[in-house]
């Protein structure tokens, strides 16, 4: 199953007032080409995607916040799952693309003993799933978006064949932050100044 195909299925399910946060690597490149509207925080570095998304749920409690993370990134800081379970935000959806690879630098722990869904369950997140087909992906994600969370979905995908990079002016760092903040400031629920 390919990451890109899953993201293509996800894109139409995300309405313009939802928030998305992506980890580095192809999550960012692919997602940035699929969702052109709304507030998207792209290119979060290792271990930071989930807790950043969790923080966003505190700013926008009435909107779905969807974290698009990867296995290597999550495993840098699995304690973030403990915090997610405890804060227990109903509007939180974490989708972990598990390709078992650190980019082109070899296999991660999920190809051996680690099971991210079980770790999330141990952390205290009840609504979890691991999906391996596009049908299962669609069904799981639809349910996550239509019902109260927090939801945690592991998506088993193949490693990407090619290295894909997003537009560096839109998908990373300070420049991305400006696009994101612009969308945030225009959001109907925004309460900041």
């Amino acid at each position, binding site marked *: 199953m390919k990451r890109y195909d899953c993201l293509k299925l996800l894109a139409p399910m995300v309405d313009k007032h939802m928030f998305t946060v992506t980890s580095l690597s192809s999550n960012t490149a692919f997602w940035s080409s699929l969702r052109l509207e709304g507030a998207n925080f792209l290119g979060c570095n290792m271990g930071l995607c989930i807790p950043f998304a969790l923080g966003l749920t505190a700013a926008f409690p009435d909107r779905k916040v969807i974290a698009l993370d990867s296995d290597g990134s999550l*495993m*840098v*800081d*699995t*304690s973030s*799952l*403990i*915090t997610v*379970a*405890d804060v*227990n935000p109903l509007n939180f959806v974490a989708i972990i693309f598990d390709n078992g690879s650190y980019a082109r630098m070899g296999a991660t*722990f999920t190809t*051996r*003993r*680690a*099971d*991210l*869904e*079980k*770790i*999330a*369950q*141990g*952390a*205290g*997140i009840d609504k979890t799933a691991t999906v391996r087909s596009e049908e299962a992906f669609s069904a799981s994600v639809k349910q996550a978006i239509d019902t109260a969370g927090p939801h945690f979905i592991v998506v088993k995908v193949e490693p990407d064949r090619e290295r894909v990079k997003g537009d560096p002016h839109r998908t990373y760092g300070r420049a991305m932050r400006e696009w994101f903040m612009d969308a945030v400031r225009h959001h109907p629920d925004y309460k900041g100044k």
Partner: protein
Amino acid sequence: MVDEHMLAVTSLSTNAPFWYNVRPEGPNFFALNMGLCLPFALGLTMAFPRRKVISIDSDGSLMNDSSSLITVADVNPGNLVAFVFDNSSYAFMGSTFTARRTDLGKMAQGAGIAKSGTVRTLEDFSAAAKQAMESTGPHFIVAKVEPDAGRVAADRSRTSGRPMREWFMDAVRRHPDYQVRR
């Protein structure tokens, strides 16, 4: 159950003074700060592969860096016995996540440590510890305990910081298996 050549590592709080009171001599590394006990113990297993290394951690400390469980599972050291004394408290500063939704035994299993379990009575603790000490690991045992009644005193120069490190290194240098790679 701990012989003189086994190595032990503790986290902060009462784990350190209590362990010092029961096993003052031998290679003990006391009072590692939050999140560091388990990975440090794991490193020791690689320096002393033929000896049991016992990690005496606490729930708050482990949860600071729960990713260490994944590393333990992957290195898969047969000589590691990891205890977590889970009193669901950050010292006297309120309850931790294990008082609510978090189950460390389950997280360890998810990380890939097959020999993980939770014990709640002294009998079960004894049985689990004995089995862990006598068989190949890695073993991960969560011991549910009550919060400690008060603070416990122990000789500071033996149980923390740089002075403790000197005692530890002294024991390590005299250990029959000690090999320095030059």
